[in-house]
């Protein structure tokens, strides 16, 4: 297959998978096989793209010119391939997990669930591999629409209300701010292409560019900068696999991925550093970081606590982009991956706990470590990775983000990063520690191991193992992101 075809196939494949998933709605086993096979093929396609990009290639393809000068086009570049690889690998893992969860939890409308899941993944691929900002925006919006039915999966009043918040905030912010900034960029520069060093420098005054930057940052609601973060806790009513893959990886990472792309390819790091407003926007990211961590401390519902933790962790990446140094982008890019593995493990664990014991509250989880040792061990590993303690992957991204604050001479930001890490110790670690080292209510069967279905446990152990491996072997990621931070 030529690189162009591989590129187009990687975006189209998940959408094509809708057909077998819908056609096989009466045969659950075949339907799930279709999802697994698609996810596997997608992973292989993305790996082949990765290979191209590592060798310095930039496969690109144009599909159609929608408006004069504005095309739907795709291109594989380092950051995009990294995101695509992350999403497609974790889709495969989540597909395995979903089978255990959806059946173990007896969910309804499973065909719709798997169909929307595939469509959401296709939209994510479109975001990751978009060849210009116009295409990225299109798939960004599609991602909101395809995940809406997943958020409202339960169909009750709570889900409906959550759906309203979800759609209102995500679509609202993107239409009111993102689209406005997009069209303004187009009318100021006449291009929306991704170009190393940016397209704005020399054409747009720093003051105007600052307004554009603010519009972009608040328009990208998926990056969950406060005060536009409310949709993420609301989305937690969805089934756990959705929260795990989409609201810890695909959707939220699509947001921060867009921020990173903007910093590198639209604004350009040098120009970004020269914009006066950038510094003020780093304070917004820092405030989000600290506030979200503080709110997470007070949540008793496990999924909500994880959601607020995600909001905080996303701001690390936004902060990395706004520091406008190569180390910041590198740290941000690494954190996309490290946080994804850690957070998806935590959500997998939350789902496994729900399926095996029906518990959703942190306060109910005392002594759970004896009943679910594997799950809680994975929870502990993932928590440590999110906190950023070696020997786990999360350490590296924090390391580079810390370096970036020093490069940019922003010691206050270093303090924010460290404080937030301490806060994450406080909101994450008590959960596994209490599960292992305190007794629950005296129950006769408490000593017996009673884990979630095998598919669930296998998936969460795999991603927890991933957190470890990412610490030992971060070099491929580092090299890939080096291609991004330092122009070829």
């Amino acid at each position, binding site marked *: 297959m030529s690189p162009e075809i591989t590129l187009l196939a990687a975006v189209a494949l998940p959408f094509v998978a809708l057909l077998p998933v819908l056609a096989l709605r009466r045969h659950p086993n075949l339907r799930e096989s279709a999802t697994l096979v698609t996810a596997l093929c997608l992973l292989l396609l993305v790996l082949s793209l990765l290979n191209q990009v590592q060798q310095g290639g930039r496969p690109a393809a144009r599909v*159609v*010119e*929608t*408006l*004069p000068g504005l095309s*739907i086009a795709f291109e594989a570049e380092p950051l995009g391939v990294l995101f695509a690889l992350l999403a497609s690998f974790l889709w495969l893992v989540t597909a395995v997990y979903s089978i255990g969860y959806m059946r173990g939890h007896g969910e309804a409308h499973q065909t719709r669930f798997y169909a929307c899941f595939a469509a959401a993944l296709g939209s994510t691929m479109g975001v990751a591999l978009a060849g210009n900002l116009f295409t990225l*925006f*299109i798939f960004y*919006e*599609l991602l909101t*629409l395809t995940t809406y039915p997943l958020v*409202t999966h339960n*169909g009750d009043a709570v889900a*409906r209300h959550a759906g*309203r918040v979800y*759609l*209102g905030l995500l*679509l*609202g912010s993107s*239409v*009111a701010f993102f*689209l*406005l900034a997009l*069209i*303004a960029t*187009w*009318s100021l520069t006449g291009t929306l292409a991704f170009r190393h060093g940016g397209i704005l420098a020399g054409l747009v005054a720093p003051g105007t560019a600052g307004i554009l930057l603010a519009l972009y940052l608040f328009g990208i609601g998926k990056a969950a900068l406060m005060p536009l973060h409310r949709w993420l806790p609301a989305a937690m009513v969805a089934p756990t696999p959705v929260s795990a893959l989409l609201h810890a990886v695909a959707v939220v990472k699509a947001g921060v991925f867009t921020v990173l792309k903007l910093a590198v390819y639209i604004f350009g790091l040098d120009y970004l550093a020269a914009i006066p407003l950038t510094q003020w926007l780093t304070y917004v990211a820092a405030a989000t970081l600290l506030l979200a961590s503080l709110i997470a401390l007070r949540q008793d519902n496990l999924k909500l606590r994880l959601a607020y933790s995600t909001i905080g962790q996303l701001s690390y990446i936004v902060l990395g982009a706004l520091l406008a140094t190569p180390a910041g982008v590198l740290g941000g890019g690494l954190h996309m991956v490290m946080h994804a593995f850690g957070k998806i493990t935590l959500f997998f664990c939350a789902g496994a706990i729900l399926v095996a014991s029906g518990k959703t509250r942190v306060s109910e989880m005392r002594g759970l470590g004896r009943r679910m040792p594997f799950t809680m061990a994975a929870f502990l590993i993932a928590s440590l990775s999110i906190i950023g303690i070696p020997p786990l992957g999360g350490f590296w991204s924090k390391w580079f983000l810390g370096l970036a604050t020093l490069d940019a001479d922003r010691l206050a930001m270093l303090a924010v990063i460290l404080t937030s890490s301490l806060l994450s110790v406080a909101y994450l670690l008590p959960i596994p520690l209490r599960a292992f080292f305190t007794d629950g209510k005296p129950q006769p069967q408490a000593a017996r191991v009673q884990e979630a279905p095998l598919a669930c446990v296998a998936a969460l152990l795999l991603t927890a193992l991933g957190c470890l491996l990412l610490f030992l072997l971060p070099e491929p990621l580092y090299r890939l992101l080096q291609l991004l931070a330092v122009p070829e």
Partner: protein
Amino acid sequence: MLILHAPALQVALPLAAAPLCVLLRSPRLAWVLATLVSWSALGIALLLAEQVMQSGPLSYALGDWAAPLGIEYRIDTAGALMLLVITSIGALVMPFAYRSVQHELREDSIALFYTCYLLCLTGLLGIVVTGDTFNLFVFLEISSLSSYVLISQGCSRRALTAAYQYLVMGTIGATFILIGVGLLYMMTGTLNMADLAQRLPAVSETRTIRVAFAFVTVGVSLKLALFPLHLWLPNAYAFAPSVVSVFIAATATKVGVYVLLRLFFTVFGAQFSFTAMHVGDILMALAAAAMLIASLVAVFQQNIKRMLAYSSLAQVGYIVLGISLATAAGVAAGMIHLFNHALMKGALFMAMGSIFLRLGSVDIRDMQGLARHMPFTVAAFVVGGLCLVGVPLSTGFVSKWYLVEAALGAGHWPLAVLVLASSLIALVYIWRVVEATCFQPAPARAGSLKEAPASMLVPTWVLIAANLYFGIDASLPSSMARQGAETLLGFAAR
């Protein structure tokens, strides 16, 4: 031969077929004739569009009387685009009409209904092709009178008051236009648009011409339901038979906009209209008010056809906003939205027609859980609604993009914000319907409710498909609109 007389045939064919319908009497035969005529009109419009795109504006002397004396038919790119919009909606609405009209009208009035429909089509097409201001008034009256009758045929008795309301307001509008045309004739001694454009600059500094300008502007604004002259529209759309709602919503106000374009740019000239009379400022303010207020009112409607009618008012605001910028980009954006809005509103009103056929109501409270019974119809409504909101890959997105770009290009960034804000309000009123039809539990109406017949679903989905196609590849409408706008503005410069 055929191509030579195509401009005349475009109007003459439905005009001649209308009395034939009366003679036929039989509902089925009348429908067959009206369908044949509608599709032939589409064929003629395609021929004309091809010719105009290739070799520039067409001029046709009716009865071979040369221009200043006789009536001239003149078709440029903007006109060709309008003809395409009107005839393609007309052609698509006919297969849809068969079951819907059979269900909503008494058997003995069906043939007369199709007669009126053909007359309305004649009037709308005539307005577009004519190059003569008095002839334009005549066609305007043909289309208006026939649409009063069409609207009055609605099931509910409120259709009668709605039609009467429209009759009063429409007649005032027509009278204003006639007064304006009369004043113009008094000052220049001609009714031909091209002649008027040449002779007006010499007398444009007189009070008579200014008064004439004011009269025609207000008259046409009544016809196109520009806020605050819109009061006739919501009831007319809500209580008309479903087919009429589809046809009129997609075409009639659009033709009003076209008349506005013709008068402002071709007859009076952009210099006079926008620089001397400052009509741009007034239109901009009214359009902005329409976009915001009508959208907000739409949120609180229980009758969904009425909701769509208010949404149409807001969308007319978008179109007029583009025109009020008086730049090539602005006028082109207005015309693109005119094309796109015809496609989406046509589809949405068709979905409502199907729902009325099966459910007997278009009230949101009766539509709970409807997605379970009529999945394809509701799906069409959802996709059409998303087009209205302006989600990427749909026509609405293309419109919004051009409008915001034109507003930013003209230095009016608050207008750009307003366009986007208004489309978010559209999300609110569309989503009410989505939540009611998809999430509310269905009341006990059990097996009696079936999906709409294929004859109604297919045209609906053809329009939806067109919305998606022109959302992904907008080169046809955007190139025609741009060329049309340049012709309009260029004509004024000469």
